[in-house]
């Protein structure tokens, strides 16, 4: 048996629906036999009648409704059809969900699932990585699973957390990533993971870019470079301790993210390491991000717009040469 990243998301939701009667799922085209644009809820509406509900094309109201239900003790999961459409719900997410506990002491345990990141031919409005927007504002937990196991356990954790969680699932990993089985144990949200130990350079990254980074580490290995790869897993909170411990080992930092280059996760990581781990660094820390244009539709352009093995490897070699 093997499980894809997408199946892990479906299984996590099935388990949540089975074990926790407070859970329901709310989103566009997720119900019926159809089961969602990406099939992340396939079969669930039939299995759990009345608990997987189609909504109008109303992202603001979808999240608002979930917020209200959460105040009443429910544990709604909102599926955005694409992360990019969450721009319509951003006000509810930042200003309503994100502020409610601080203002009133009443927490808002919603989980908003964002099918994120680029895939071939998806273009500017079906490819975005929005974790940087949501992490900037207070009151939200923002997670970015990179593995089948994390996709599963972190979604279960997300729903169990009493606060709003933005769960960024990467569409490219849906089918590309397989595991033997669903995991029994887990690392909690808030902890980063060393996915590959090394001593020469720390590549700190998250989501689909973890796999590009691993590819680069393998590519550099025959040349004698031992690259450590750190998967942040959650970008807010950011596990600075694990990152610093890695940089303490390697002395060198490359931070890689698929999002746009101004600000975002890579800026936050580099700024923290520079501030809190300045004396650990033997070379200038560096970043690889996407380019500062909308995400192009044509694969020839897209494959250069996003960070890729060759751009990451080039930057890695440059740091290693210092």
């Amino acid at each position, binding site marked *: 048996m093997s499980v894809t990243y997408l199946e892990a998301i479906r299984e996590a939701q099935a388990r949540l629906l089975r074990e926790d009667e407070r859970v329901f799922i709310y989103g566009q085209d997720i119900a019926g036999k159809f089961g969602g644009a990406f099939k992340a809820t396939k079969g669930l509406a039939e299995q759990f009648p009345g608990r997987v509900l189609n909504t*109008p094309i109303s992202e603001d*109201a979808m*999240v608002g409704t979930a917020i209200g*239900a959460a*105040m009443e003790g429910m544990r709604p999961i909102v599926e955005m059809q694409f992360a990019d459409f969450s721009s319509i719900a951003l006000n509810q997410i930042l200003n309503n969900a994100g502020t409610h506990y601080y203002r009133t002491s009443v927490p808002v345990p919603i989980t908003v699932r964002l099918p994120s990141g680029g895939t071939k031919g998806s273009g500017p409005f079906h490819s975005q990585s929005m974790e940087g927007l949501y992490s900037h504002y207070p009151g939200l937990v923002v997670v970015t699973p990179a593995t089948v196991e994390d996709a599963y356990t972190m979604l279960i954790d997300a729903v169990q957390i009493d606060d709003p969680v933005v769960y960024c699932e990467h569409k490219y990993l849906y089918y590309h990533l397989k595991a033997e089985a669903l995991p029994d144990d887990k690392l909690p949200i808030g902890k980063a993971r060393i996915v590959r130990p090394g001593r020469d350079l720390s590549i700190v990254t998250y989501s689909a870019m973890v796999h590009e980074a691993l590819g680069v580490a393998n590519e550099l290995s025959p040349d004698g470079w031992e690259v450590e790869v750190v998967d942040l897993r959650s970008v*807010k909170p950011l596990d600075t301790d694990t990152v610093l411990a890695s940089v303490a080992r390697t002395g060198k930092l490359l931070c890689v993210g698929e999002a746009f280059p101004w600000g975002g996760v890579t800026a936050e990581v580099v700024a923290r390491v520079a501030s809190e781990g300045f004396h650990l660094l033997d070379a200038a820390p560096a970043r690889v991000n996407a380019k500062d244009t909308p995400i192009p539709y044509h694969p020839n352009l897209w494959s250069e717009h996003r960070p890729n093995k060759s751009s990451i490897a080039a930057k890695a070699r440059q740091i290693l040469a210092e």
Partner: protein
Amino acid sequence: MLETAERGASSSTKAPPHERYLEAFRWMLTARVLEEKLASLYRGGMIVGGVYLGRGQEAISAACGMFLDKSKGDLFAPLIRDQAGRSAFGEPLLDVVRTYLGSAKGPMRGRDGNIHRGRPREGQLAMISHLGAMISVLVGRLMAKRMRGEKGFVGLTTIGEGGMQTGATHEGMNIAAVEQVPLVVVATNNHYAYSTPNDREFACAALVDRAKAYGYEGATVDGTDLAACLDVIGGAVKRARAGRPPQLVVAEILRLAGHGEHDDASYVAPEIKKESFAQDALQRAEKLILDEGLLGREGLQQMRAQIAAEVDAAVATAQQEDAPHASEEDWSALSTRELADQFA
């Protein structure tokens, strides 16, 4: 009066039980006296932040709060001109003045101010500023109650004619109809959104036509007429509770104050002040009380004095109380403290 969005249908004045007039009047007067106090504290520089009054809107607002019953699980999502309704729904005076005066004991503990106050656990939602955003939140609470098997509850929210033009209002009103939740939306056209008159807000002949456009039952009411407000809003609450589709009541009045107390409202056209919807609902209600013989002038005086004393007592209490101290904050926006990010 219930209507299916026929333009210009006028509101009924069929009298509801007399004893509710007096109760309603009391909430109206409470709001007026309290808000006059707040305005004077504001002028005296005692209040941090803005003061937004419901002057002229008290009949509508009182009716909004009066038919809701916490013991039935009812919910209220008020906005900035709903003091009468808040009080009728059970908000203690102390909650109000503590918030305005910045007491750490207020329901928002100094973290949010004045008009945003609420007690979500007790059914009163705490609005955010973005107009229309609370409608879908209320819908979600109503859905959740139904999912849990509760019955007989209703939710009511208010909106201005300006706020009706936001995308959030549209999505929220529509989703309520799709979910068929027991919701009442009371929209008040007070002819201005801040300084902006109706002709730059919308161009439909009657806002109540939105009812039909969403699949609501719609009604209009003269917001200066307490009896009509009780009748129409009470009727809408009753219908929602009985399982009818969501209800839209559109009330008409003139805003009888500035947008906030910082605003002299000199932009209000002089002619509009002569319109019948520009009457003061409180004065009209006072006349009703006297005409119906529910109280005499002396009784009214006593009621006002009693309310004023309660308000003064609340103010006196709140003024003694400590303001929040930053040193006592642990600065976490998350209830799950261990997930709060750490910044150097």
